[in-house]
Structure formats: C-alpha cells, structure tokens
C-alpha cells in the first residue's frame, strides 16, 4: 500500500498550483468578496477548458472519468489560495445529481455545458428544520397533469444566486427523513415561482435562500424516477463533505505556512517570537492537525472511489469530523499566533479562518458527523 501520487496526479497537482499562482493568487479571492457574483465566469470557463470540472464524471456521463482522488487534488490546490469558483456547488453537489439521475438528453443540455465551464448549477436542497439531514425534505411536489407544483423553502443554496439551473429537491411522497419519496427537478434561473434571494456568507462566497410558492415545473424537468432521488442525494452530500475536507487540507497547509513564516520574522523582546517554546509547541500541534486532516481526507476520497457505501459513509464522516476539530484548531491558532494583525481584515489569515468555518459547518458539522460515526456499523464491528 502506498499513498504517493501517480505521475499523472503529480502533473495535475503541479498544473493546478501553477494556474493558481498565475491566475488566482489570494488577492483575487480578497477582491471578489465585494463582487456581487463572487467569482468570475471567465475563470470558470478556464477551469472547464483545463478539464478539471469534468474530473468526477465518467466518460459516459460526459466527464473525463477521473477519480475523487483526482478531484481532491484540484480542490486542495484551489483551496490553498481560496479560489472562489463554485466547484463544490456546481460539480460535486448539483452536477453529481444530474450526472447520476439525468437522462442522456438532460445531461447533454444541463451537465455538458457545466463541465465545459459555460454554465453553472446549484443544489436547492437544505431546509432549516432538517439541519444536516440529507433526507429531511418537507418541500412538496404535486403532480398536476404534465407538470409538478412545488411548495417549500430552501436555505443556504450555495451558488444559488446566479446558477443557470437549480436542481430542486422536493418530496413527491413520504415524510421528512424518509429515504423514499424524494424527487429532483431542474429549474432554470428565473423560473416563475422560484424567487431567489441572495445571501452574503461570511467567507465571501455567495449563496441564496430559495422560496418555492406554487412553482410549476414540467414533468420533463424531473431527474430520474419519481421518489427515487434519496440515495443519490445522500451520496452527493457525502461527496460534498469529502470535497470540503480536500479543500480544507489546502487551507490548513497555507495557514500553517503563513504562520510559521510569521513566527520566523516577527520580533518581540528582541528575539523572533518563533523562539518561544510555547509558540513552537502550538505550531507543532497545528502541524499535527494539518497532517491528520489530510490523512482523513485521503481516506475519504479513496473510499468514495472504491464505492462500498458503508465504508464511504464511515470514512467521509471520520474526515469531516476531523476537519471540524483539526481544521478549526489550525485557523484559530493561526490568528492567535499572529496577534493583533491576525484580527485585521487586511491580513489574509482571517479570510482562511472564515472559509474554514464555512467548510466545517457545511454538509454536516462536527457534531453531525460524530453522531454518524457512532451509528455506523463500523463503530460496533468486532465487539
């Protein structure tokens, strides 16, 4: 067993790193915080041309047939510079649902342009009362002849402020929390009865609340069989959790580098502050957490590629809970070790801090995933 990158993967990593250096240094993320779109459609197109948006989809789905490990490599490098393009919302969440449930025609029309970087998608799924439960959907979709009428409220739709298509999840039968009865629909931007109100998240990205009030969508907008979307949605959220971990690995790496560099330059009491043992030990703990977050994230990516659902859910929850502890520790201590400058908006460490918090709290926070670890068959195996 070895965990080194293949030659192709190393090449991928290097090309993403060089793209970031040339086209999206951290200053770009800083500027785009104030932009209503929050990212750039041109850069999105570039990511498409480079082929990175097609990595997680099979060739039959119109993708490049890469692996989740490959995607993780891209996310880690983009994360290290807080590149704000909506990969997780468009590709990992909504893209996955369209790829898995869509017909060939739906994929050609709604996924292929996303993979090419010409369009974006967003998943309108989360409901306030469900917190992190992927099956907690109370929004209803009632069949009326050739169309469906949708009613409900979706919160914190990542990238929902400008996605060309929303993938809306509603219940065609059953009760909130049940696996059966969930159905996904494609709703083009501006569809009547689907008003979108933009939100300004703390990490400078964009999201939206989406209210569905008697929205009417044609039956042809349905993705897959009626009531059968539950498993794919759970999968999409697990993949998004693993994607957050991969991105988080990039964040911890960048923040650790930034902090150790600061410890080696800042002087107080006539010496470098990095010479204080209390701070050395803190930096070491940050390093250890960085390594643990990375290790857990790799395990999650490998498990998703391997496809055993029990192992995948287990590994994803282990990784996401680890991010909640270790990722948080790294960014919090990074600010602490920077002292006053760490609290200024001008310093980049705060940008990482807020992005990390968003990654930690999306797709299940630490408490959610710890509970899932405890309820996994793996937890009690071998007793």
């Amino acid at each position, binding site marked *: 067993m070895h965990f080194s990158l293949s030659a192709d993967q190393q090449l991928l990593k290097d090309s993403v790193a060089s793209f970031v250096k040339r086209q999206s240094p951290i200053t770009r993320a800083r500027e785009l915080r104030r932009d209503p779109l929050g990212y750039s459609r041109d850069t999105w197109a570039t990511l498409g041309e480079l082929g990175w948006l097609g990595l997680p989809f099979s060739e039959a789905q119109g993708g490049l047939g890469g692996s989740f490990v490959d995607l993780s490599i891209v996310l880690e490098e983009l994360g290290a510079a807080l590149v704000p393009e909506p990969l997780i919302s468009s590709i990992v969440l909504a893209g996955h649902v369209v790829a898995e449930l869509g017909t060939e025609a739906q994929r050609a029309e709604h996924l292929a342009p996303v993979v090419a970087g010409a369009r974006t998608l967003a998943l309108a799924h*989360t409901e306030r009362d469900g917190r992190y439960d992927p099956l907690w959907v109370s929004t209803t979709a009632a069949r009326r002849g050739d169309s469906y009428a949708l009613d409900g409220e979706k919160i914190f739709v990542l990238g929902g402020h400008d996605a060309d298509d929303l993938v809306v999840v509603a219940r065609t039968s059953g009760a909130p929390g049940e696996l059966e009865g969930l159905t996904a629909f494609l709703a083009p931007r501006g569809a009547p009865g689907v008003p979108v109100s933009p939100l300004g*998240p703390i990490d400078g990205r964009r999201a939206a609340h989406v209210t569905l009030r008697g929205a009417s969508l044609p039956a042809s907008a349905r993705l897959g069989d009626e009531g059968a979307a539950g498993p794919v949605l759970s999968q999409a959220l697990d993949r998004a959790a693993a994607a957050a971990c991969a991105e988080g690995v990039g964040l911890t790496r960048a923040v650790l580098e930034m902090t150790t560099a600061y410890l080696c330059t800042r002087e107080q009491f*006539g010496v470098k502050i990095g010479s204080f043992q209390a701070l050395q030990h803190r930096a070491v703990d940050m390093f250890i957490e960085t390594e643990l977050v990375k290790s857990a994230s790799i395990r999650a990516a490998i498990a998703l590629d391997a496809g055993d659902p029990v192992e995948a859910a287990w590994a994803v929850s282990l990784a996401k809970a680890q991010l909640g502890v270790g990722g948080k520790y790294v960014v919090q201590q990074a600010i*602490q070790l920077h*002292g006053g400058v760490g609290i200024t*908006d001008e310093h980049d460490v705060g940008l990482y801090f807020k992005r990390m918090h*968003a990654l930690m709290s999306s797709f299940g926070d630490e408490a959610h995933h710890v509970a899932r670890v405890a309820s996994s068959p793996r937890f009690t195996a071998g007793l």
Partner: protein
Amino acid sequence: MVGPLIMQFGTEAQKRRFLPRILSGDEVWCQGYSEPNAGSDLASLRSSAVDDGRGSFVVNGQKTWTTYGQYADWIFCLVRTDASGKKQQGISFLLVDMKTPGVTVKPMLTIGGTPAFCETFFEDVVVPKENLVGPLHGGWTVAKALLGHERTMIGGVGASLRALRRLKRIARETTRAGAPLLDDPMVAAKIARLEVRLRSLEMANYRTLAAAALGHAPGPESSILKIRGSEIQQDCFELAMEIMGHDALSWHDTAGAVPALETWVPSTYCYNRATTIYGGSNEIQKNIIAKLILGLS
C-alpha cells in the same frame, strides 16, 4: 481602565477635571499602549514625548490597535520620555486630548467586518505637562496597575453570562425535525459544560472584587480571569455558531434572512478571536502566572 488610575495616581486637579466626565459618560477614552513593534513587548515602545521647555511635551510616534479611537475624546498614552536607561524606566503616562492638532486616527476593519480599532498617529502634538499622570519616567508602574484593572474587565464574566443566556435562547428557538435543540441532551450538555466553567470563574471574579474592596489592587491573579474569561467568551460564540448551523454562515446583511436573535453572532464570533490577544495575550498572561504566582523561572 483609566478612571481607577486617575483616582490612584492623579493630582487633585486631574481628578476634578476628568473623573466626573468619565462617570457621566460625557467623555470617552481610548487606550494608547500598543505600537506596531511594541505589542507583547510593550516596554519597547518608541512614541516619544520631549519637554519643550515651555511647560509642554511634544509627542511624536504611532500607536496601533487603538479600540474605538475614532470615537474617543481622550487617549491615555504610554510615551518614552527617556531613552537612556532600561526600557521600563523612561516611560511616562500621558493624557492627550484627541482634538489636539497633530493627532490623526485611521480606522481599520476587523475580521468581524466592524471598524473596531484604529491606527493613531502623533505628529508634533503639544500636550500640557499637567496631563502627566504619576511621576515623570515612572509611567511603567502606572501602566501595570492599569493592566490589572483591564484584565479583570476583559475577564468579562457579566458579558459571558449574558451571552450564555442568549445561547440558551438560540438553542431553544433553533429546531431540528421540529424539536428545540435545547432538548437534545448532547446540545444541553455542551451548554452546561460552558456554564460550569463560567460559574467557577464568576466566583473567582467575586474573590478578586472582594480583595479589591479591601483595598488590594488586582494583582497577577487577574490574569486567571483574563485567560479563562477570554476563552469562555470565545466558546460561547463558537457554540452559538454551531447551534445556528447554516444560519451562522451568513453576515445577515439580507433583512429577515435569519431569526433576529441571531444576527450578531457571526461577526462577534470572528471578532472575539481577539479576546485571547488583547489586554496582553493569553500566552503573556501565562508567563506572568508562571513567574509571579508559581515562582517558575
């Protein structure tokens, strides 16, 4: 912070001039201790005050992280009046009217998105000598006495008690599958654990206050309040963020985007990373306790 100092070290004239307006709230003060290169190592400060021979000091230099300097009427400053000896000697404690020509402030944004502190610049600022508090070159003793008060204040037990109450309300109003989160034993236990720590600190605070009432100025034990109090303040908001879930992730600049009770949480959560840094970082407080209370050196 500055009130007790003027009471302890001020002249009768200074007490008459400043204390009533501090009490009435007519004059707001800010603190000019830190400089870009003198944070933890405060005694290495370089802002200077030179005797102009005509009854005034001329102040030059820069202070930084000045909380609410943009709103303050007065600033109490540590300035160097003698650079020849040990760095702790040769520091003086000076009160400066923020309207004096040559004082400029540049507000800065914090990671919480609020303009809570400033850079403060002094360029040939003329300050009358009667604004010196305590002896000339003897400001370090005054400065340290003030820090005892500041640390006790930063302990912030009252503010944390309020934060804890709001935290419980948020946990009651936030639901999962229709049930209040406060009813979830795991959530309740997390809040209760915070309460345990806070109630112990509350009592430690009373002990410090009782000693103060007997005339003992807060000494190194105020560092206990500062360390745990600042951590608890952070933990209250961290837990509020956790309980709010997705709603904690937006600045709430959109009206009605989240329940009203919760709108202040994300910004305060971010800003509160400062509680373990300001007033002397917690690392510095631990150095103080190790040295002055435990006798380790």
